[in-house]
């Protein structure tokens, strides 16, 4: 499972992600991200917090190029995600897993098929059409189903699952990619508080077990402080806080979210 080379010798993680001067404007002249520079060192969990509409999702989605950046660099595995295209872009995406706020499972496919979606970057279309995935992929899928506690749901259709179960499938699908990086875009925002904690616990433990660094977006500050080793506060399209959860004080939250009546 550990196919990623980790260059411990030089103390630099090969999976480090360097975002520099990233600007994203959906409409010309109205940037959502206004020159963001962050170095993710490629281990543990980093939470990006901030108010709605401040560009958290945009930042995450630019990393795997679901969103086109306007300018700047996103260096990962020796390539600039902001520039790559075609086959190289697909290869890069196949190394980055993603967990979505609304799970984004293919509703009419079975749980097993949804997991195998994670292998689509590696298996040619004629084989996926016939559902002839390599035996190792099937075995990995069953292992992950065990890990998320959904083995008996393998052949059930995804639309038969509850929200929490769906997100478990979403996490398993992302880990099927054997990713060098796991992105999670508001993974708990569609879930109740108890399920949210369970999902975060599951994601944290599985990421640790599979040795995958995680970047997670969330607006729940307490949840972020509880699970992340590093917190980045985004406000108005720029980084306004970057540090360990313990260093995040009320004045930072005031700066990030504005006002103080809610604290």
């Amino acid at each position, binding site marked *: 499972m550990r196919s990623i080379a980790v260059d411990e010798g030089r103390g630099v993680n090969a999976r480090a992600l360097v975002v520099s001067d990233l600007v994203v404007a959906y409409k010309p002249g109205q940037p959502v991200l206004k020159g963001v520079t962050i170095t993710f060192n490629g281990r543990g969990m980093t939470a990006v917090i901030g108010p709605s509409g401040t560009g958290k999702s945009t930042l995450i989605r630019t990393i*795997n190029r*679901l969103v086109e950046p306007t300018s700047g660099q996103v260096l990962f595995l020796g390539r600039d995600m902001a520039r790559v295209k075609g086959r190289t872009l*697909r*290869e*890069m*995406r*196949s*190394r*980055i*897993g*993603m967990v*979505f706020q*609304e799970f*984004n*499972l*293919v*509703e*009419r*496919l079975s749980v097993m*098929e949804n997991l195998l*979606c*994670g*292998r*689509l*970057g*590696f*298996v*040619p*279309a004629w084989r*996926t*059409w016939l559902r002839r995935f390599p035996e190792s992929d099937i075995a990995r899928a069953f292992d992950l189903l065990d890990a998320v506690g959904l083995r008996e749901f393998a052949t059930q259709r995804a639309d038969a699952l509850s929200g929490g179960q769906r997100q478990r499938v*979403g996490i398993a*699908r992302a880990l099927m*990619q054997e990713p060098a990086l796991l992105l999670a875009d508001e993974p708990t925002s569609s879930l109740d508080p108890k399920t949210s904690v369970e999902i975060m616990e599951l994601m944290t433990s599985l990421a640790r077990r599979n040795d995958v660094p995680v970047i997670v977006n969330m607006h729940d500050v307490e949840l972020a402080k509880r699970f992340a080793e590093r917190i980045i506060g985004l406000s108005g399209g720029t980084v306004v806080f970057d540090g360990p959860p313990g260093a995040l004080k009320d004045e930072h939250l005031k700066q990030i979210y504005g006002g103080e009546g809610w604290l």
Partner: protein
Amino acid sequence: MLSPSKHGREARRAFEANWLARLGWLALAAYVFYAGSLLDLNWERLLLGLDNAGRLFGRMFPPDYSRWELLLKGMMESLEIAVLASFFGIAVSLPVGLLASRNMMPAWLTWPARMLIALCRSFHPVIVSILFVKAVGFGALAGILALVVASIGFIAKLFAEAIEEISLKQVEAVRSTGASMPNVLIFGVLPQVLARFIGFAAYQLDSNLRNSTMVGIVGAGGIGGTLFAAFQRFDYDFVLAILIAIIVTIMIGEILSARLRAVFQ
């Protein structure tokens, strides 16, 4: 307490009067009367027609099945036309419908695809049949080609609309795994549209079965030719035999396509 508005009723109108729509209905009613008067439709003409129809029905009974071999041959040919036209029509419609879907394809691809669909839709199958009879000669080939064109015009458009209504979130998730375009289609798009595609295809087979009994009238093969000849020779009892055979075939087709749709829901 709510006090009556100073502006009275004027300011409290809940529904805006749509004068344009009222005018439109009025114009439609006026045109129907005008067209009716132009075509000399009156009770006398209707009674004359009913009288004639009564005599026709009288000569139809009992249906004559003595030429059952001719009937069977024609029906089999119609069935062949319908099945082959549906098969090739649907096979062509799948890529054309995909190319025409504006959420999956860029505008420079959707426009030509939509033009092709519009072209296939613009003529009734009878007109297309005549064209193909002139082009490739009498027989089933002309009928098949005509119904392929009709199928593309109808079903490619429905396919495109079905694809345009899918959830792009599911597609985005599949795309984010680094899947190639064919893999995105197989795992992200197809599962969302398959049941509807099967429904449309079954409907098209149904509709082609109906149309295949008609293309023969212009010489494009099938039972239609036999039916037309029987009409012209005033063999009304044989006409009824053919009509009953068509009704039975269409009903069986309807039942089968309903079953097919139920399986894939």
